[in-house]
């Protein structure tokens, strides 16, 4: 059966890696690609994507130019929560393959200069996990204190219920043990008891296991909730930060160059705590509010929603980085934002039926943008030039659509569309066997939108994204340079500088659907020549007067500012 055994043999030490092990800051410059193993490519023709299938498609990802893959959970699981309910941390979900497939994937990615990180759920396990099965038997077994048990369901009532639609309480009664167990998420996901040193150690062993296999790091799911304390809401407790510092120390001491990315659905000023006061917790955190603010800015045709949130974003410690994205597998929900931001979002969205329609529903980028390719280009140009490491969501590089009739989050998890052939080239299984139906609608279906067609068409969105990625990757200032908003008289224009000792890049974005003029105040840079970065065309030099540019609807420019006489390149 194809794919049942790994097609490349793992021989540690012999594989030619294109990964520089001494580069411990790679994540500050990297472009990430979030991929759903289940939905990427099916090598076994059982209707579900697998690790070998992903390995088969690494050449495509290398061609696209991504630096790091982020895999959603692929561990053994009853799949009641998309794999975030792990029943064995040390094995792979059989539908996806086995440990050997995971090792081959990592090795083959490394050969191509790509790193691989994966989701890891620290906070809880599935109730099917052997640890829980043992813990629930009685109150004296060796795992009796590995979970959080209580005689009643009243303690820690200050802690909010996150999934209010399905969970009445953070406590659920277990008839086997005759006690309640604590769970911040679904009632089939009991929280681990981190006050038990054995649990804290066991989870470090899980971390070491995967890093030993070559994984380049983790996205740590739901980190704010590891501990519980009386009189608190159980979020962001000092004990949680202390444990993260312990995880970080293991990484730094034993696995330098690997990365921890925190998923803390919180406000930037709270999220920064997860970098640690001196950068000694997570290397990266997601910047959640930037994405909805970008949508708001384009909707309002003004820069303020974006510049406001960036002004409210605190500085982060040296050696850290934000993870920024346009879309991912989850959505921004109003529960995660501050009261002030909730008021802001409600005020802004409440009367706007178009925006309200999309709150709380997972949509892909293109449907959200009414399939407007110019707008999608502007969004990518902003994503790739703003402070942070961009994270692409699989399929967005070809403009895939969604299927809102699948409900919940499945609508944005349909199979990757490779070709116009059966099942979009994702799988040779019968259509009815697919884990989710491939899109077949006339606008976004695989016959209209697929990798093969766009690879053949040099003016496709896919080729455009690839070229933009190349430009970004050749200028590390995008990853680590300063970010300085420029004064522009026209509110529809967002202009900023990215700057470090080696380069100054000027980015100008038109948030309006109409052509716009703009005068930029650049006298500080008088004498320099803006060179447009996609075509290397020099623009008129900056003078003492405001610098005047005109922008096409949703147009943008990236200029590399050069001092005359210092341009690189051969001379006649």
């Amino acid at each position, binding site marked *: 059966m194809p794919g049942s055994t790994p097609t490349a043999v793992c021989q540690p030490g012999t594989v030619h890696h294109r990964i520089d092990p001494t580069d411990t800051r790679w994540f500050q410059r990297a472009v990430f690609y979030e991929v759903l193993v289940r939905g990427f490519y099916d090598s076994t023709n059982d209707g579900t994507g697998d690790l070998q299938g992903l390995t088969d498609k690494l050449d495509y990802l290398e061609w696209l130019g991504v630096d790091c893959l982020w895999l959603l959970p692929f561990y053994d699981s009853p799949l009641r929560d998309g794999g975030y309910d792990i029943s064995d941390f040390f094995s792979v979900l059989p539908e996806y393959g086995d440990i050997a497939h995971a090792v081959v994937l990592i090795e083959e990615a490394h050969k191509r200069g790509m790193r691989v990180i994966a989701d890891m759920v620290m906070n809880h396990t599935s109730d099917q996990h052997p640890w829980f099965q043992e813990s629930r038997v009685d109150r004296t077994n060796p795992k009796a204190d590995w979970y959080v048990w209580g005689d009643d369901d009243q303690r820690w009532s200050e802690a909010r219920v996150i999934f209010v639609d399905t969970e009445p309480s953070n406590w659920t009664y277990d008839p086997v043990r005759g006690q309640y167990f604590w769970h911040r998420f679904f009632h089939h996901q009991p929280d681990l008891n981190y006050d038990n040193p054995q649990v804290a150690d066991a989870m470090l062993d899980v971390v070491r296991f995967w890093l030993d296999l070559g994984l380049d790091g983790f996205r740590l799911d739901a980190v704010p909730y590891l501990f519980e304390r009386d009189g608190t809401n159980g979020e962001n407790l000092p004990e949680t930060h202390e444990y993260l510092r312990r995880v970080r120390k293991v990484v730094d001491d034993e696995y330098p160059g690997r990365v921890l990315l925190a998923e803390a659905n919180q406000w930037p000023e709270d999220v920064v705590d997860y970098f640690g006061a001196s950068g000694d917790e997570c290397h990266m955190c997601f910047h959640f509010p930037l994405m909805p603010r970008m949508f708001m800015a384009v909707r*309002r*045709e003004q820069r303020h929603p974006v*510049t406001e949130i960036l002004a409210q974003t605190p500085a982060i410690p040296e050696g850290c980085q934000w993870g920024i994205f346009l879309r991912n597998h989850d959505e921004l929900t109003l529960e995660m934002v501050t009261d002030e931001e909730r008021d802001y979002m409600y005020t802004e969205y409440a*009367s*706007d039926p178009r925006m309200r329609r999309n709150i709380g529903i997972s949509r892909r980028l293109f449907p959200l943008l009414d399939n407007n390719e110019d707008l999608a280009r502007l969004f990518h140009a902003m994503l790739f030039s703003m402070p942070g490491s961009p994270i692409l969501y699989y399929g967005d590089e070809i403009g895939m659509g969604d299927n809102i009739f699948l409900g919940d989050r499945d609508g944005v998890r349909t199979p990757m569309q490779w070709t116009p052939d059966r099942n979009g080239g994702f799988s040779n299984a019968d259509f009815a066997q697919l884990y989710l139906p491939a899109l077949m609608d006339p606008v976004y279906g695989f016959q209209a939108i697929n990798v093969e067609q766009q690879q053949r068409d040099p003016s496709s969105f896919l080729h455009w994204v690839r070229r933009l990625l190349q430009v970004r990757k050749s200028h590390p200032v995008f990853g680590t340079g300063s970010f300085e*908003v420029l*004064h522009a008289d026209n509110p529809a224009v967002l202009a900023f500088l990215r700057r470090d000792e080696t380069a100054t890049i000027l980015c100008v974005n038109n948030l309006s659907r*109409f052509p716009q003029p703009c005068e930029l105040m650049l*006298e*500080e840079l008088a004498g320099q020549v803006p060179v447009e970065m996609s075509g290397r065309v020099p623009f008129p030099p900056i003078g003492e007067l405001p610098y005047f540019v005109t922008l096409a609807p949703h147009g943008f420019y990236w200029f590399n500012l050069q001092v005359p006489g210092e341009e690189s390149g051969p001379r006649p």
Partner: protein
Amino acid sequence: MIDPDALIVRLPELLPEHLARQRWSGAHDRTIEDVELRWHEVVSPDPLLIWTLARARFGDGEVQDYQLFLGARDATALPEFIQGKDREIVALIAEPAPGVVVYDALVDPDLTIAVLHLVAPEVVVEHRRPIVLEHSNSSIVFDEARILKIFRKVEPGPNPDVEIPRVMAERGYDHVLPSLAELHRDGCDLAVLREFLVGSTEGWELARASVRDLLAGGLPPEESGADFAPDAERLGGVLAGLHLAMADAWGVEPGNAQRWADEMGANLAQLVAGIDREGPAAIPVEAIDERFARVADLRDAGAEIRIHGDLHLSQLIKTDAGWKVLDFEGEPARRRSDRFTTSSPLRDVAGLLRSLHYVGAVGLGEWGAWDEDLQDLVSQWERRNRTSLLAGYLGTDGIGALLPAEDAERDALLAAFELDKAVYEVIYELGHRPEHVNIPLTGIRRIVQDEGAP
């Protein structure tokens, strides 16, 4: 080196023509009889920088003091910064050779920094840029971080544009820009340095963009992308907060409805005296008068407090730190002594409501199409934003204590202030932009015909 004394004695003969050319002087259509220097000071000898307060006496006997910073350089090699700045050149003096060019020092990068150091000696700056198109002041931005506002028309005593933001900021009201440094002389405020908020936008520009988007999209305002209503509501709250802080700082008097009505009547009389009532700008004087008379009859006029006095959407900027209120000088066409420094807070609210009307009307005019559907859209836009602004204002805790207790009386007073503002606008437009006079006339007609909001 240029002899400063020889130059200073010649200034009174050179300045009248120069002043008449300046936008900020308000003297382009008046005759300046003569100019005398109230005081002068040589700030730097080379290049020469003279700082002076010049008193102009007009043909009608009025006088006005102007603050000037004058540079002078050798005329053999005209510096580059002066190229194309004919309006800023005071004079080219040929004798004695090689001659001297005298100019407004604010176009000179070096001397501008010398001016800054008069205000704030310790500030280190690298770059500066002047802000063009200002009516009554001159402003310069330094390093995109600070803005120096130089008052051109100087009147005795503290300038409310310095005093009010300072006091408001001291009281914790954070929708103003407090002073970083101030320049005073003889009890007059002459300049103020403030933080420059990069990326800020005038409310007028944002509202204009909203109307443009509305007209281009053809959707109702609440479905149009650039909906302004959330900001209108915020602005209502910002204004109410300002009024509460001003009432707290300078006290609250019972509203004097009779005086307000008299002021409105006087304003109207000035208008009537100046125009042909049978002409195209027909004004329903009796109906306006009747509305003003209702003010005099109010049982409860609310409070009289210190107010902004000239609030419109260009006096509000949206910044990354929220909305900020600017320009507390009052209506520039009036002398400070004639401006409304205290009144009902509803006078400011009326100013913003009139501004919303203007922005819609100007937007529609620029769009160049007058079909009924578009007019209706703009009316919807204005109604929506009026409602939001008033909701934000009236919804602020404590503001009710400053207003007439009864809604009907409050609305009557607000409508009268809107009318009064519109009368002022008619006078202004007839003098400056006759093509716009229909905007305030429409505003007047709407109110007197009891249409109220659009």
